[in-house]
């Protein structure tokens, strides 16, 4: 019994104090006979640490990881470098085995980290306030939409475009289905830009949701879209990439009202999609609608500066059905990782990371475009992500060939062009122009040698069709 304490003697003494003959007696007193299990749980037998470690190591070794393969995958999760300090700090038990800081006196470490995280997010986004994190980028995007809808009573239209992350749109469809809201997904133009959404904004529009750089790696005219939304009385929500802000203008400086991001890029491992970190910041005026936990500064009874969870009256444990959101646990440990990561990078480190991504992505584009088989899709410059069309029309075979050579060479976009579940098919599909295309991400971690090998392997792959 691996983590249990009691000796037979302990158990006997404890039962004596309780005045019970056995633990079963207590349980039988509580749980009616008719609903008690009459057989043991059918689970694999207990396994000791030695055997389990060996088995788990075997299972782990059967997966292609960004360690065993060279990773050019993105689509909202990126193989960025994580400095050793991040892992070292986050693996301290005082952080990862602590609880939600309801008792501020014994949680000043976590509370200060949350306050620092919030400050860093406001510095990063150029917006006034930040919460202390949400589940992930996708659900944060939807929380932002719900927040905007609750601000904009009487307006129920949500406008987005088909180059916002398809999975984020899928979440939006699921959440909005049962409430009074209409989701309008405006097709992007042939270059993958969302400008056409401007014409769809009307006096019923509560908010517009854009992504910049968007899912296909293109930059959007954020300021223009935000200005049009503001003119019509609608709020602008932007999905941003934290690393991009080493170079690109901040959401707050472009007129955006709510900015959300997937924070995985800031010191968090790929971990097959989670746990991830939902970043959210907004203009000051929206603070009382901001979902999730917020740490604030105050003083203690001796006048010393300290930190507490604050504005909790918005939250479920006080407001119950009137709460602004049902968010309960959050991603503090991942917010800690992001805080340490940003502290290590600083402004120049963030800029340098963005510059390396930009240069390596430009190089990768250039080498792949040399092959007649491939065409880079979309005209604009890229930060770290771009789309490649396989004129041989065999993306699945191409990527399988690359995997055999130890490369995770790109994400097949063809299945994403036909949408998700039936109910949400049109709302979540990518434009059909991305069929037989794959999405490539080049982070600062990719070396020239790796990029060259990637291009060579792709160019030499057998093709089903003749080019």
């Amino acid at each position, binding site marked *: 019994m691996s983590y249990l304490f009691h000796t037979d003697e302990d158990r006997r003494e404890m039962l004596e104090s309780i005045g019970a003959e056995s633990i079963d007696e207590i349980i039988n007193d509580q749980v009616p006979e008719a609903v008690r299990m009459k057989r043991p749980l059918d689970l694999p037998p207990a396994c000791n640490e030695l055997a389990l470690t060996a088995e788990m190591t075997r299972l782990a070794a059967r997966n292609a990881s960004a360690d065993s393969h060279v990773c050019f995958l993105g689509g909202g999760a990126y193989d960025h470098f994580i400095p050793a300090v991040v892992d070292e700090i986050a693996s301290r038990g005082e952080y990862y085995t602590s609880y939600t800081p309801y008792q*501020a006196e014994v949680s000043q470490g976590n509370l200060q980290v949350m306050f620092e995280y919030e400050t860093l997010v406001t510095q990063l986004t150029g917006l006034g306030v930040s919460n202390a994190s949400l589940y992930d980028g996708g659900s944060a995007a939807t929380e932002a939409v719900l927040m905007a809808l609750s601000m904009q009573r009487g307006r129920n239209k949500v406008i987005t475009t088909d180059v916002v992350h398809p999975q984020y749109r899928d979440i939006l469809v699921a959440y909005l289905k049962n409430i009074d809201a209409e989701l309008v997904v405006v097709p992007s133009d042939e270059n993958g830009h969302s400008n056409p959404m401007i014409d769809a904004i009307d006096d019923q529009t509560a908010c517009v949701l854009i992504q910049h750089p968007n899912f296909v790696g293109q930059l959007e005219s954020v300021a223009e879209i935000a200005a049009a939304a503001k003119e019509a009385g609608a709020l602008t929500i932007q999905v941003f990439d934290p690393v991009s802000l080493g170079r690109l203008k901040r959401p707050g400086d472009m007129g955006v009202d709510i900015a959300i991001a997937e924070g995985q890029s800031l010191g968090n491992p790929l971990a097959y999609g989670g746990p991830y970190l939902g970043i959210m910041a907004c203009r000051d005026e929206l603070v009382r609608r901001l979902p999730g936990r917020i740490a604030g500064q105050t003083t203690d009874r001796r006048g010393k500066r300290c930190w507490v969870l604050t504005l909790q009256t918005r939250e479920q444990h006080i407001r119950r059905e009137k709460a602004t959101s049902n968010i309960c646990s959050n991603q503090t440990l991942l917010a800690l990782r992001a805080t340490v990561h940003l502290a290590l990078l600083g402004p120049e480190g963030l800029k340098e990371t963005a510059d390396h991504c930009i240069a390596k992505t430009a190089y990768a584009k250039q080498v792949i475009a040399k092959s007649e088989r491939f065409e880079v899709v979309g005209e604009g410059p890229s930060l770290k992500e771009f789309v490649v069309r396989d004129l041989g029309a065999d993306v699945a075979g191409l990527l399988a060939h690359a995997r055999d050579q130890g490369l995770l060479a790109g994400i097949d976009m063809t299945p994403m062009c036909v949408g998700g579940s039936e109910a949400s098919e049109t709302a979540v599909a990518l434009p059909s122009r991305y069929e037989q295309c794959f999405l490539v991400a080049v982070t600062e971690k990719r070396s020239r040698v790796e990029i060259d090998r990637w291009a060579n392997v792709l160019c030499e792959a057998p093709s089903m069709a003749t080019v």
Partner: protein
Amino acid sequence: MRNQQSTQLLFELSRAGRRAHRLGDLDVPSVNVDDLFATEALAETPPPLPELAEGDVVRHFVCLSTLNMSVDTHFYPLGSCTMKYNPKRNERIASLPGFLNVHPLQHESGLQGLLELLYELQGMFAEISGLPGVSMQPAAGAHGELAALLVAAAYFREQGSERNVVLTADSAHGTNPASAQMAGFKTKTVKSNANGLVDLEDLKAKLDDKTAVFMLTNPNTLGLFDSQIEEINQLVHDAGALIYLDGANMNAILGITRPGDFGADLMHYNPHKTFSGPHGGGGPGAGPICVRDFLAKYLPGPIVTRVENEEATSDDDRYTYHLTSPSGDSIGRVRSFFGNTGVLVRAYIYLRTYGGDGLRHVSEDAVLGANYLLSKVKHFLDVPHGNRCMHEFVASASRLKKEKHLSAMDIAKRILDYGFHAPTVYFPLVVDEAVMVEPTETESKQTLDAFVEALFRITEEGEELIHDAPHSTRISRPDDVTAARRPVLKWTDAAGESTT
């Protein structure tokens, strides 16, 4: 022995020109970013982040860590949020590159080990709950509540039913009504009776043809298993509604009873409570949900399926595992990518460590510990509901409040001085001056005795000593009111100057 430097903010430690992380020279041709991008897209300067050396960063965060209580350093007798030992092997194994550095959009051919694990885990969750349909996508318990309620809404929509009300118990976690509201339902509260169980008359009065779901926590937040469960089951199902089980307290009933067997149609788990995933200062957790077979087609996805490989030559290729996207009936997604995989991997390791019999022992010892504490505490604090409990119990400080002007909060603050985390206070709302205690199965009798001793001594101590507690912590009794009235939610030069 703490100098001011250790608690200064990152922004106050910052010195222009310091730098911790450097990438060095590019190995590809550099590009002129200003030429490549349009001027209106580019920022003139990078964001004004603090500038620090690596040593600054390490010392800062290590010093801050020592200001936290944690399970690794302290006993957390915290009701309603199980704080049990977090096994180190789980952390180590979950950090193997084959689990940690796997991209969520990579092809399933390179995921067979992980998918096998996740498939097995889906099966374990189904077995423990007695509910066959499983989705592991939700990222937290409350997220699971929402996802399950969206599933219920999809089910009723397909039935052509106009059921739009969710009933929640007055002792339920506040997430229940908040989740119901987010899923588009109206909520009504069902009262508790004098025994702390569901008031059946009130339930009957509120059940009608508009009721979609009754959300039940069982064992409930008073630590009591509702002995009327069979009748509740009958009433709710006869009314054509579904029963949702808040799985927050599953650690009390593992292998003893199953939600599916006692009537639940949908439920969520909190792996970070029940299956020892660490809480990380508030998260991450995960919120996998289980449902009856007729609800499975509405689950969010993807889920993992397997196909037997008839030409297999070894155990490794006996099955092929696939990620199956939701069907047309599914609610779609509630989160990007698969889910909080890292938390699920830890749950899997925990379940494999114990096996079925071991899991029952976990619940037995959790129940033993709680009843032992109850048997001791009731000598000096009132315990309004019951002589026996499951995994936790709720005492009341209302008598102390009358006699000595000591509140539940005062006790909570003073217990910190004794080196214990405080119990949960003021929840559930149905108990006046509630002090909610949950020891879990991973604490020794010696620890429990020391905790009871400390609690008893506090009830004997002078009022002044307790009102000013805690005395041993770096700060004491922060001003929450000012924090909320005049929120300071980020560092600025001005905020720093005005308060230091």
